[in-house]
């Protein structure tokens, strides 16, 4: 801080009050040296951000308007990439699947952890056990949980149909049926990821002051009324934050469809990110891939901006 004081002998400092920071634009050479030091520390990190975050973001937009093949000079093609991608029959399927997936994940993957956290918060025994067990699937590599569920969904000896037979229910095609494939993937994603949501929501529940429940009970509110008028309003911010985070995450779903269904059957599980991957690595069409990326970016950017605005304004308040 006090750069001028730093060089003075210690005893001078001891008797004098430490002076206020020198006004901006203080001594030229000293300031320059400080800046050289500061940028020495910054350089590596900022270079990585420039190379792997800022530059690719700009490049996505640029290449979206180019015909780009690695090795040869790019050509400007206007909006041709966008129109070509738009008319791809997989385009509509990918967006429909991604939005359906996000919506289902919000209904299933959000309601279950929410109820679970509510119940767990009431239990007074084996607290550590519940927290560890619910978070265990999150620590299993996503590829492993995808392969595991692919095995469960196997039409032959798969556990999922075995369970249905055990309960005397009709069996299902699960991930192999065009109608059931998407929801099967939502179940996998929910199983694998709900641990984080449960833990965060649990922490939020614990911060609700107990007096509020007492007061509500004195006013004659029953259990459901207490949930509606105390629990939900008190955790409104966390609920909204988790919801946005989940939307952002599920709209980028890739591993589950890639590993379990390969986008099939009949394009029922092709997602936007999967389509981006296909354009780049199967069709070698980087212009089309970037045009798709830009579309996804714009949509997700809206949610991200909302999330950041929310967390930052609440954090500063």
């Amino acid at each position, binding site marked *: 801080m006090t750069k001028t004081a730093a060089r003075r002998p210690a005893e001078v400092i001891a008797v004098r009050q430490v002076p206020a920071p020198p006004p901006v634009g203080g001594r030229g050479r000293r300031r320059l040296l400080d800046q050289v030091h500061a940028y020495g520390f910054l350089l*590596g990190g900022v270079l*990585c951000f420039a190379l792997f*975050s800022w530059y690719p973001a700009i490049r996505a937009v640029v290449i979206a308007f180019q015909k780009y093949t690695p090795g040869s000079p790019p050509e400007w093609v206007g909006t041709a990439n966008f129109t070509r991608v738009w008319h791809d029959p997989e385009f509509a399927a990918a967006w429909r699947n991604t939005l359906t997936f996000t919506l289902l994940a919000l209904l299933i993957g959000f309601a279950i952890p929410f109820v679970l956290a509510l119940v767990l918060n009431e239990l007074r025994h084996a607290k550590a056990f519940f927290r560890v067990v619910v978070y265990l699937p999150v620590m299993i590599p996503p590829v492993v949980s995808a392969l595991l569920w692919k095995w469960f969904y196997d039409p032959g000896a798969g556990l999922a149909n075995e369970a249905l037979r055990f309960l005397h229910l009709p069996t299902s095609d699960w991930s192999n049926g065009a109608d059931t494939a998407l929801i099967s993937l939502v179940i996998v994603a929910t*199983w694998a990821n709900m641990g984080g949501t449960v833990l965060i929501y649990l922490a939020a529940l614990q911060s609700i002051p107990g007096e509020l429940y007492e007061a509500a009970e004195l006013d004659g509110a029953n259990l459901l009324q207490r949930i509606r008028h105390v629990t939900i309003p008190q955790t409104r911010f966390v609920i909204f934050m988790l919801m946005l985070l989940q939307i952002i995450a599920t709209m980028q779903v890739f591993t589950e469809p890639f590993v379990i269904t390969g986008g099939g059957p009949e394009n029922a599980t092709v997602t936007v990110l999967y389509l981006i991957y296909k354009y780049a690595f199967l069709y070698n069409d980087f212009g089309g891939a970037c045009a798709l990326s830009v579309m*996804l970016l714009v949509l997700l950017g809206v949610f*991200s901006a909302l999330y950041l605005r929310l967390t930052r304004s609440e954090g500063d308040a």
Partner: protein
Amino acid sequence: MSTRTLVSPATLARPRGRAAYWTVFTTVVLLFALAFLFPVYWMVTGAMKSPDEVAQTPPTLVPKQWHLTGYTDAWDLMQLPQHLWNTVVQAAGAWVFQLVLCTAAAYALSKLKPAFGKVILGGILATLMVPAQALVVPKYLTVADLPLIHTSLLNDPLAIWLPAVANAFNLYLLKRFFDQLPRDVLEAAEIDGAGRLRILWSIVLPMSRPVLGVVSIFALVAVWQDFLWPLMVFSDTDKQPISVALVQLSQNIQLTVLIAAMVIASIPMAALFLVFQRHIIAGISAGSTKR
């Protein structure tokens, strides 16, 4: 100790309340065991069944005979040592690069007041709004042909290590923590003639152990769990991390062997979690209560 929650302690103390509590408790325990532990059990024991037994309907709950050949075959046939080692190298390198470069940058932004620091921080925070996965293709093109020096990092662990540094979340976490360090301690050190590196090393870092732990765990887990990025970057089979190798090999390998490989691939992170579960769970929970 016990704080008041939805259900009042008085209700729980009544016989009916107590009965309801234990019913719910038992149900949840069973549900958790069935939903989260049983799949893991099924995976671990499935790998020990014979190839015939694993394909049989109805399946057996416990293997008739316990075979270890699934695990040994996976270890040998799928070159698991190689892929595990690749993953360890990638994760460890990403961790070191992130700790060194992110910490230095966060320290500079927090304490050294670089010119345009606010602009740089804004640029870093803006990347939080750009979902990482949506940018993989242009990022891939950048890594395949670095600007100015025109080198390719494909099939090189640097392709994991360097992009890992561009982690705005971790950098911001560090910066926020450094911001809260008491200013007078750092000033005292400066007056004593300590250089900036010295202050960072002997004062800032020892005071920042908790946040460094959180960042370390995030960094390791992120690399170990990642799939799409290593899938793009490592076309060379010998360089692939375990997650990519599993998927590539899953097509033409015996089911029991594949399951065994899945178990082996899960062990490192599961072990890390069980050892550090208190810290990890506390870290995740802290995210929400801070508001």
